[in-house]
């Protein structure tokens, strides 16, 4: 009985993906021109290839920003339960901020925030 269910599960998984791709291929309007193939489409012709080197500094800044951005999201669930948990929650968030600040200090100390 449940072997059929499993087969059905796989078939429907393939079918849903397949039908979706087929439909979009059938329904979508097709346009073919030179601009379509360009790496970055903005009206002005692009110069050079998209495989070029850029400063690692951009990457480093972006990733440090991203980490701290994501970490601060954890404050929202804390804020929701803060009142019901009381002092424990308060001390926990202090520790959390301490570790977060330490991370920033580490990045600073390792010259990851220096642009030259």
């Amino acid at each position, binding site marked *: 009985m*449940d*072997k059929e*269910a*499993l087969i059905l*599960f796989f078939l429907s998984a393939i079918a849903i993906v397949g039908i979706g791709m087929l439909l979009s291929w059938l329904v979508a309007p097709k346009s073919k021109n030179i601009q379509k193939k360009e790496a970055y489409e903005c009206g002005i012709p692009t110069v050079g290839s998209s495989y070029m080197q850029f400063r690692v500094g951009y990457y480093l800044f972006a990733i440090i920003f991203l980490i701290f951005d994501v970490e601060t999201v954890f404050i929202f669930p804390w804020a929701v339960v803060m009142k019901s*948990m009381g002092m*424990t929650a308060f001390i926990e968030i202090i520790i959390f901020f301490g*570790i977060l600040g*330490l*991370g920033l*200090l*580490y990045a600073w*100390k390792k010259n990851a925030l220096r642009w030259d």
Partner: protein
Amino acid sequence: MSFSDFLLMRNELLLVAAAVIILIADMSFSDENKRGLYNISLLTMIIITVLGFLPAPSGKLFGGMYITGDIYILMKNILNIATVIVLLQSRGWLEKPGQQKRMGEFILLLVSVLIGMSYMISSGHFIMFYLGMELATIPLAALAAYELNKSKSAEAGIKLILLAAFSSGILLFGTSLIYAAAGTLYFEGVMAILDSTAFTTLGLILFFAGLGFKISLVPFHLWTADVYEGAPTNVTSFLSVASKGAAVFILVIILNTVFKSLNDVWDPMVYALIIITITIGNLFALRQRNIKRFLAFSSIAQAGFIMLGVINDGGLGMATVIYFVLVYVFSNLAAFGVAAAIENETGKESIDDYNGFYRTNPRLSLVMMLAMFSLAGIPPFAGFFGKFFLFTAAAEKGYYILTLIAVLNTIISLYYYLLVIKAMFIDKNGAPIGYFKSDTAMQVSLVICILGIIVTGFTSGVFDYMVNLSQQFFLTLQ
């Protein structure tokens, strides 16, 4: 929840505190001289390892997401010991001129992996387990790619991270199927509900495959040799011992708790995996001339042997798995320690370079010999008892043919382990590796390993203690 509840998480909290201490210490020492940082890290890790042996309360936290008990503490202690030994062995390598600047990163990543493994073992919820597993994997990839000026190291890192991502995907798909069948992700809840249907079987298989990558069982072993060869030797030793050990521990726990009702599904599966893992691991190990690749395939074969304990779904099986991992920690780290010492001094990795090593460095050769004897399972050493108990565990369940195949494979493995010893003691070499003196930390670590090999073999109390704890663990399940 009160603060006394946090005592249950003693090991993890201490490790997090250690990570913070190491981070602060890393910032306060100058780039040229990080010797103080190494000493502080080693001291904190030793203190945590010693504190781990104090009696600890058992219980649950966060509504059952975190479980702890005597057997969990024992597993974590074994991993702590392995980390301390790896830390001791990497001292000479970390304190090389030019290398010191990044020492803090190495130690921090190592401690992060340990934190992840501790949470993984103690998890009582699939998401918690997954979090721990990722924390124990991603820093490892960074560690494998640690040597910036070696392309092989970068290759090892990218292979490890890609395979880890792939195996996580498989594991998560398996978990999602189990969630679809059970409606909960708590181990307790799943255990109560799960029954043997095609859906749950598929979930189990996918979950098992995901963990199989970590343990490097045979259909999932292809990354092992390349990563082991490319990664720095000290990282390889950690990867082969602690990462594998942690995955085996959680596999034993999960198969015997969550998937207990699917016992008749995973029994034949583990049976088949043991046979191909041991055989293929052994056959490939025969041909290796690079010591790290050789130890990689040897570790695949050893993983197959460990699974002999997993197939015995009882207290004896769990105890033999823990015992074998402990023995394996000591013997494999001794072998890797000697390999790391030689590589650190001369940069040589080939077994052919070891020819005539006994003439110039008799003491290191003796350590390597003991390690190889223990890995091969020659009687007076701990490796023999480890394998003997594993065979007993498999035979207790009535798997006599399986035990016979494993015993035959032990004989094959004896051949290639002895090849290394032959190269060191018998083969002649016009220009052998010259005499060198390894640093004190390395010597201490090798002495600990040798003592471990001998003491765990000769004292029956260790194994009895493990059997006791495992049986208690199974009693509390009912």
